[in-house]
């Protein structure tokens, strides 16, 4: 993407070579610079990931100590447990509701904000503003907007004759309500990435198109979208992963309810581990989450590789 010109590797001069030999071997020096990262990744990412995989095969006590090895029984139990199946269903529906719509809206915003107009910087800033909003703050605002009696959403719906929708208390609407607020929260980030992608497209392509006199839509379909495909591919993967990892808005808006309709997987893990103290089951669910995300990433790499146009 960025035109990083490769500097020709000039042969290392003799004096530099002799100096190298006197000092420490490069591998030690290199590892020293990498040590802080490697250490932190080991302690707070690789070790706990392996521990999660390990604990998922055990029945544990409330402190998370493994008691007896049960093999895949935690998983077998989960896949027959209606609560977990409901949680999977809620997660997939949530992904389905948020990812495509969020992407289309952000793409639309990026396209109109990519025009060269006076004052466009102002609009770009506005469109990216939700990126500066925390999940907690955004959720509190949306909670108020969804309030059935004093919230603005029902006030507006009243005007068109729809009354008393219990957004967050009705199992039919709760997941939709959480999804709408999530789409809003993610727009800023998705917009910013897509705008960056649009601005990286070579201006000359558009000049040629202008000379050829093609329509806006033709240009959009034949130049903009194909050239944007690496960015689109990236942001789709990230959006999928983010959707699988949703927690904050659920915790504040619905606490997984009503009747588990918004009990997405991370919330379910959280509840099992820190409310029910069932660490074995929580670990098995975390393992499933890990493989879901691995699958999405692998799948998109495989599918993306063929369809994506790289510059």
């Amino acid at each position, binding site marked *: 993407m960025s035109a990083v010109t490769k500097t020709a590797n000039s042969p290392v001069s003799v004096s530099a070579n002799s100096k190298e030999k006197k000092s420490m071997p490069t591998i030690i020096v290199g590892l020293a610079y990498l040590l802080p990262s490697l250490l932190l990744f080991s302690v707070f990412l690789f070790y706990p990931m392996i521990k999660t995989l390990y604990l998922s095969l055990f029945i544990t006590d409330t402190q998370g100590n493994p008691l007896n090895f049960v093999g895949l029984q935690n998983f077998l139990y989960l896949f027959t447990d209606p609560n977990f199946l409901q949680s999977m269903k809620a997660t997939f529906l949530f992904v389905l509701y948020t990812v495509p719509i969020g992407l289309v809206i952000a793409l639309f915003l990026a396209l109109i904000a990519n025009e060269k107009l006076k004052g466009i910087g102002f609009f770009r800033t506005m469109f990216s503003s939700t990126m*500066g909003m*925390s999940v907690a703050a955004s959720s509190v605002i949306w909670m108020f907007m969804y309030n059935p009696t004093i919230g603005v959403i029902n006030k507006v719906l009243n005007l068109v004759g729809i009354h008393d929708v219990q957004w967050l208390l009705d199992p039919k609407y709760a997941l939709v309500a959480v999804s709408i607020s999530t789409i809003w929260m993610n727009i800023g980030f998705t917009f910013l990435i897509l705008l960056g992608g649009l601005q990286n497209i070579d201006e000359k392509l558009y000049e040629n198109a202008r000379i050829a006199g093609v329509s806006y839509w033709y240009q959009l379909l034949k130049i903009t979208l194909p050239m944007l495909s690496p960015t689109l591919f990236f942001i789709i993967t990230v959006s999928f992963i983010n959707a699988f990892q949703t927690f904050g808005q659920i915790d504040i808006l619905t606490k997984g309810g009503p009747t588990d309709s918004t009990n997405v997987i991370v919330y379910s893990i959280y509840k099992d581990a820190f409310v029910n103290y069932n660490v074995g089951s929580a670990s098995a669910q975390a393992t499933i989450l890990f493989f879901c995300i691995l699958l999405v990433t692998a799948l998109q790499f495989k599918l993306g590789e063929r369809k994506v146009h790289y510059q």
Partner: protein
Amino acid sequence: MSITRKWTTYLLLIAATLVLMFPILYAFSISFMSGAEVLEGKIWPSSFSFENYRDAFEKVPLLHYLINSFAVSIFVMAGQLLVSSLAAFAFVFIKFKGRDAIFFLFISTMMIPWEATMVPNFLTAQKLGWINNYLGLTIPFFALAFGTFLLRQQFKTIPNELYEASQVAGISRFRFFWNVVLPVSKTSLVTLGVYSFLTTWNMYLWPLLVTNTEDVRTVQIGLKQMQTQEISTDWGVVMAAVVVVILPTLLLLFLGQKRLQKGLTQGAIK
């Protein structure tokens, strides 16, 4: 661009801004309302009163939470900048056997969802005595693959000849890193810094797990608590707190939007 197209675009831009910004403006508006006005479901306050703001700071230790959040965010930002830039330097300037394998290890960290590791991490934090402790809120986040990739992209633009010349001149690697590489990469460091601060300030799940007293509780968790305690009675106060919480990050975003966008696309796509 034709006149019609220009005005259609402006119209779309303005309409989109109004829709998108509505929740934020609404929160501002509510924060100035009296309790009665909130319950009437008004959109705009009849007069602007700062009473809710005063109450927000008096009824909950909001200032204390704000200071905690600032401390944690600044600390994580500094840590991420240092740890990521050290790693990026090794990936660009120090060639050694096995470096590519380690680079692959860095990439693989991006495939591990942090939430899948939270239970053992919580147990680790407990063992280290990091519950209700700044260390627990900050140190686990110092290493950042994304930050390393972003800075690596930047460091690659520094001519290798410069590094070789410094070696010949007998300047130590660390001095080259500190006195040459970091100063010329200021822009990327600022970008990453803004990103670090934003994400840390807005962090939710981990602070929820590792804080259960007011001591080091961050402002996001403070908000959650306010909202559960004050629900339906004092929405104006809650919204005042919301505004106080989002102002620092919104300002930071408004100032750094352009850089952030550039940095995110650079670090992300490459």
